[in-house]
């Protein structure tokens, strides 16, 4: 299995799940709509990526044990603070653009084609992130949130793409000590709770159920 694509797909699934947690409770109606739409789109990207890897995307999404997921700790964090949530949106989309751009040059035309499609759609997520970043960047609460989440965002990317992320965000790469437990390969305690909920309906039904 292509670990890079699986990691990307798992990031989109788990972050889509996290973003959907704002549906109905975002601090303003417009953001309620925005987060719901972004979540739906991220999960759609996860599905399309899983389809490249398997004939049964549902099984891949929901039937794996927790330690088989390849998502980065960054997307697992259960953020209840709006400044942190927006900081993650902005950091995630900035990092995501870099890895998707790399995939657009993939020698496999199916991968390159899907990456190009995803990139077109993500452009709207990036605009949303940039809009909020422009609005909040001088607010101390937002700056603190970016500072706290920055090592997690770095840990989402393979090492050779991290320099580009630091350039785009104008932030300094953290030390290896700071990165410990925040890089892909580790999981945070929040993933267990998310997995329990995300897979609960699937697990409650007998195998082979038709919906």
């Amino acid at each position, binding site marked *: 299995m292509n670990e890079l694509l699986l990691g990307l797909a798992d990031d989109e699934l788990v972050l889509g799940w996290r973003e959907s947690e704002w549906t109905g409770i975002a601090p303003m109606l*417009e953001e309620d*709509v*925005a987060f*719901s*739409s*972004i979540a*739906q*789109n*991220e*999960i*759609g*990207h996860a*599905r*399309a990526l899983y*389809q490249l890897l398997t004939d049964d995307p549902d099984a891949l999404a929901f039937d794996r044990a927790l330690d088989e997921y390849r998502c980065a700790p960054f997307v697992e964090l259960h953020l209840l603070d709006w400044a942190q949530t927006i900081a993650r949106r902005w950091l995630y989309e900035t990092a995501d653009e870099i890895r998707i751009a790399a995939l657009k040059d993939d020698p496999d*035309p*199916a991968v390159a*084609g*899907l990456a*190009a*499609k*995803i*990139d*077109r*759609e993500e*452009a*709207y997520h*990036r*605009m*949303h992130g*940039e*809009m909020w970043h422009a609005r909040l960047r001088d607010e101390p609460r937002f700056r603190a949130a970016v500072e706290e989440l920055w090592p997690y965002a770095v840990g989402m990317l393979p090492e050779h793409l991290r320099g580009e992320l630091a350039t785009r965000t104008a932030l300094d790469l953290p030390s290896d000590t700071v990165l410990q437990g925040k890089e892909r390969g580790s999981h945070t305690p929040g993933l267990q709770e998310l997995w329990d909920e995300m897979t609960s309906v699937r697990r409650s039904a007998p195998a082979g159920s038709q919906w």
Partner: protein
Amino acid sequence: MVTEQQVWAALDEIADPEIPVISLVDLGVIRSVDVREGEVRVEFTPTFLGCPALEAMKTAMEEKVAALGADPDVQVISDDSWSTDRITPAGREKLRKAGFAPPAPREASAPKLVQLQASVFRCPYCGSTGTRLENIFGPTPCRSLRYCESCRQPFEQFKTI
């Protein structure tokens, strides 16, 4: 034996599940129809990958082909080949009449926030370009929300993809 033309005509009867004023053929999501000895292969390109109507569209196409007495083989092609530029002129006009502003043409680079915030998008009700962006996102992944300052009417704008 079913002809390619019959298949296109049948597919043209399928309304978009989210925006029923326009058909799947108007929307330009059917990339090709290939008729071979009792089997009809349809290549279909999703609008947005997160579109909740994808499955409904696929099922509707399979039913239409089956109703013509042929075996349907509907393939979803998830690449960059669909663009809002593929919406037909007739489709754009149907959208506008139903209160959806048609998409702006695609450019080589992705659209920018400053373009979305510019007063160049025309209100489908009164034709004024004095409109502003309310929300990049709307009720489905393919739409944004705008507001017309001239006739004070909110409307939905098809996103350029």
